[in-house]
């Protein structure tokens, strides 16, 4: 494109501009990746004190694998991510179809409300859910006379509820984009050929927006897995997820074990990016 079009009667300004763009690019990627690379490198460092290289080791990974707390946290994180992704993908997709294919009163208002969980700072959502769960669980305990060990407490269930509350919006936004790109004539053609709404959805709409739904689900999964703030304020005893566990360790001290956990989390994230890119690529070529 333009960048490759040589021979524009170049002024000094243009040449310098290009050099600056390159320099800025190198700086940006150095800034983005240097901390990550250092973090990974020192996860193999054979020194408890961290920031001084003392030889290669895998012992921090071994320690991590042996930690019961980490194992529980990973299990909790995956459980929350899978359940909340499943619920929010179904509800988000349904919401997206209603928003894109129906006209109804207060549609624009609801449109605005749907964007709120995406743009609102997570700390505000976190404290509002804390207040809400504390109040509603208290009421329910009173109502059913639950006390002591049988009393309802915040835990993984409240975390899942909270994650679904913000993920519905993310899924809906992604799925709406693919619905908007879908020619409405396809649906009309299917109905014209005798398919009712359900068959039209199952045979025509669903296959064509599957890449969008998968993309939305992947986003929801990542957001759920990564969330710290909202989880922190809505969880309770026995509801420690991996970010909560890691945060606790970071606040206590710096140790190479955290580097090892972080490295594994980085790898998981990268895997998710690769999968999401693959899903998108397939979606764009099949239509």
């Amino acid at each position: 494109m333009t960048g490759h079009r040589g021979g524009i009667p170049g002024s000094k300004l243009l040449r310098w501009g290009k050099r600056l763009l390159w320099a800025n690019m190198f700086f940006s990627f150095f800034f983005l990746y240097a901390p990550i690379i250092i973090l990974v490198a020192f996860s193999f460092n054979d020194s408890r004190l961290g920031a001084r290289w003392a030889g290669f080791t895998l012992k921090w990974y071994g320690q991590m694998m042996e930690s019961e707390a980490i194992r529980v946290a990973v299990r909790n994180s995956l459980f929350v991510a899978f359940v909340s992704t499943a619920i929010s993908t179904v509800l988000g997709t349904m919401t997206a179809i209603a928003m894109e294919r129906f006209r109804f009163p207060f549609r624009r208002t609801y449109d605005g409300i749907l964007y709120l969980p995406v743009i609102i700072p997570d700390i505000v959502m976190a404290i509002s859910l804390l207040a809400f769960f504390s109040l509603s669980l208290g009421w329910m305990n009173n109502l059913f006379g639950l006390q002591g060990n049988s009393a309802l407490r915040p835990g993984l269930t409240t975390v899942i509820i909270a994650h679904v509350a913000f993920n519905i919006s993310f899924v809906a936004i992604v799925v709406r984009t693919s619905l908007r790109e879908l020619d409405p004539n396809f649906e009309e053609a299917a109905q014209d050929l005798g398919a009712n709404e359900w068959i039209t959805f199952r045979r025509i709409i669903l296959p064509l927006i599957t890449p969008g739904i998968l993309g939305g689900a992947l986003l929801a999964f990542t957001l759920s897995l990564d969330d710290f703030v909202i989880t922190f304020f809505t969880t309770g005893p026995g509801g420690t997820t991996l970010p909560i566990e890691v945060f606790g360790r970071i606040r206590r001290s710096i140790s190479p074990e955290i580097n090892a956990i972080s490295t594994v989390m980085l790898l998981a994230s990268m895997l998710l990016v690769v999968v999401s890119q693959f899903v998108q690529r397939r979606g764009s070529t099949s239509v």
Partner: protein
Amino acid sequence: MAEIYDVELRNVTKKFGDFTAVKDISLGVHKGEFFSLLGPSGCGKTTNLRMIAGFEAPTSGEIFLDGQPVSQLPPFKRNVNTVFQNYALFPHLTVAENVAFGLEMKGLGKDEIRKRVADALEMVRLPDSGAKKPHQLSGGQRQRIALARAIVNRPQVLLLDEPLGALDLKLRKAMQLELKELQRQLGITFVFVTHDQEEALVMSDRIGVMNHGELLQVGTPEEIYDRPANRFVADFIGDTNFLPCRVTECQGEVAWVQVGQGIRVKAACDQAVSGERQATLAIRPEKIHLHPAGSAGGQGEDVFPGRIEEAVFMGTDTRYVVELEPGVQLVVRYQNVNAATERFREGETVAVSWRPISARVLLS
């Protein structure tokens, strides 16, 4: 008893918010007819089609298919099929799966479906394309598959929304004839939406001309062309000279009008006019004849003296601008049957003639 039309619209109006897309239209389409809805874009012709298909519900009025009211029926319960302008072939299904879709919905058996899909593909002359995906086909091929996907269901009515609009001129002309032939073979009623007047004239048994949501005239191509009901129809279909005129006398279907300062013209008039009134005189350029000055016109023609203001050679014919008197000009198309030397030159005086029936009085 009134005739049962295959498709009938009775006082149908469609509003989108404040905008009235279709204004109180009543229309009947006969069984086996090739009916075209013709008009400029935004005139409401596609809305009409979508209401017949069931994609839109009329705001008021009723639509009948084979005598039965259908306004409350969803599209999948109507025995009509649509060929979409952009074809709307399902991109994730093969050509055969696309064509089979409607038959599957009807619950036909596998063997029956396979046979009918093969027949339909044969009919549109793409028998070997079944395994392909739509994006592997050319525009013309996609058009044929869209047609096959609709006719394979043997609908009572086939609705076509500018189906040839995306094709290039040559392919378009070939498809016009092919489509007409197919309709004759199948005997299915076609309702065809187009903005191309030539296409409508070539293909249709009858044409309905629409503008601003109103149905202005319904008739055979000849009626529409030769006896346009108003200025819009005369202007939209073919070229026409419009001369402001004054009706001085009207007897039956013959009127005398005055054009300009002192030209008296005998013309055809569909409506009775009492007393004098302003009107427009419409004459098609090809129905006006030119002769050397002083000569008489053809049999039954009225003759007027004129002067050639402009002559433009256009291949098969020459386009002249002739002035009858200052301010009164006519465009004349004259086929170039004579040698070049015999054509009229700019500035030459000529005799201009036409038959009174070719000049039509249009009341506004």
